[in-house]
């Protein structure tokens, strides 16, 4: 098996770094946006509900790659020329990839949070009210803590998918791990080595996320808490 030079290995690590940053940035944006979507969806206004439902349906039914392309190739047309040139000078690939990934994930994250909230019976709310809780207090102490527990497993697998989907950003030239892997493979033809290392790097990432997820689940599990006390 052909070994990589230190420089080539370094390049892969830089790719991994970009992958992780892209993941973190889009996950934070996705989560924040999802919270907004959930709140907007909960309002009484039919127009708000339609908007959110449409948003979610679009992002669930169009491939992520197409969403990324739409942002990178299509959207700049709507921007004023100077903004466009500024963007192209400032890592537009990364920005558009992050936006597309965040929007795509937010639709799913919002649905996960919403179904968690819906799983909490209204009687919990009544019980809190009967003790004198205001709406916000009931949500904060009673409903949200329980809903988050229910939403945790789907949110973890959603984060996992997002991490893996950052690889799609290579299609518009973001120099993340998959992109670098292809590049080095092209230059050196050390196919197995390069792809092997990249695969291991991805596995380290996903397994770390999985471990973190089950640590969180364990920590918030009720019977475990009871035993610890």
């Amino acid at each position, binding site marked *: 098996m052909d070994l990589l030079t230190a420089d080539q290995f370094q390049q892969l690590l830089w790719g991994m770094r970009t992958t992780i940053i892209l993941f973190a940035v889009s996950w934070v944006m996705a989560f924040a946006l999802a919270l907004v979507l959930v709140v907007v969806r909960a309002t009484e206004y039919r127009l708000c509900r339609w908007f959110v439902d449409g948003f979610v349906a679009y992002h669930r039914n169009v491939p992520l790659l197409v969403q990324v392309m739409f942002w990178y190739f299509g959207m700049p047309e709507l921007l004023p020329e100077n903004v466009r040139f500024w963007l192209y000078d400032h890592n537009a690939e990364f920005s558009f990839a992050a936006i597309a990934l965040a929007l795509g994930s937010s639709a799913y994250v919002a649905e996960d949070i919403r179904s968690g909230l819906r799983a909490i019976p209204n009687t*919990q709310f*009544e019980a809190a009210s*009967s003790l004198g809780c205001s709406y916000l*207090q009931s949500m904060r102490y009673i409903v949200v803590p*329980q809903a988050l527990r229910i939403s945790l497993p789907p949110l973890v697998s959603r984060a996992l998918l997002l991490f893996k989907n950052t690889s799609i950003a290579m299609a518009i030239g973001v120099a993340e791990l998959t992109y670098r892997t292809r590049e080095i493979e092209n230059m050196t033809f050390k196919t197995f080595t390069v792809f092997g290392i990249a695969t291991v790097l991805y596995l380290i990432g996903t397994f770390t996320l999985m471990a973190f997820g089950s640590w969180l689940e364990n920590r918030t599990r009720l019977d475990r808490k009871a035993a610890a006390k």
Partner: protein
Amino acid sequence: MNATVRDAAIVSFDNVSKWYGEYRALENISIDIPKGQVVVVCGPSGSGKSTLIRTVNGLEPIQEGRIILDGTDVHARKTDLNQLRQKVGFVFQHFNLFPHMSVLDNVTFAPIKIQKKPKDEARDFARKLLDRVGLAEKADTFPGFLSGGQQQRVAIARALALRPPVILFDEPTSALDPEMVGEVLLVMKSLASEGMTMVCVTHEMGFAREVGDRIVFMDQGKVILDDTPDQFFSKSDHPRVQRFLADIRREA
């Protein structure tokens, strides 16, 4: 107006009516409940008894009349319901404990988070209450590990933690297995013997006879009969009451 009765009453219904759309759930209810009384509300299902008790702490709105709780008009627009609810305990049919909190945290939740009482004081009092309902050793368990009867006793302790002058019970034993009914009734009886004002929606006629000061019988949203247990059981010749008692006996 009879001022003396009004003053003594801690809960009073003044010509209360409630509709669900066209359907009239409560019809011109007027009842005064003086301090220290144990009132048992009974009647066939759909008679409006649960609705009645849920209007007292504002879980259900009313369309007509007034409900005065400890001097405050429950349904007046300027009333702070959350403030008011701290003065009235509520025990649900299905307990509605908070599954993500330990038993102790369920009981201290309202005193600490809503009333902002010091934690130590709240915990001490909560442990006393748990001891009283016979569950001191379950303080650190989670509700999911308790039987129905135990959960309901915790729910009673949770309601008592706010030291309310009145406590409302909405069919507290009807979701329980028969062998667990007794333990909950025992706690309720001890509360009654200490002079707690209680309004209980229940089908437990033994409890009604033994500790009830008064039985309110409802049917189709109306109060049909409002009398002492002795009168209710011995002399009532109202056909609907007769049928109700016969049904209860057949089930038991």
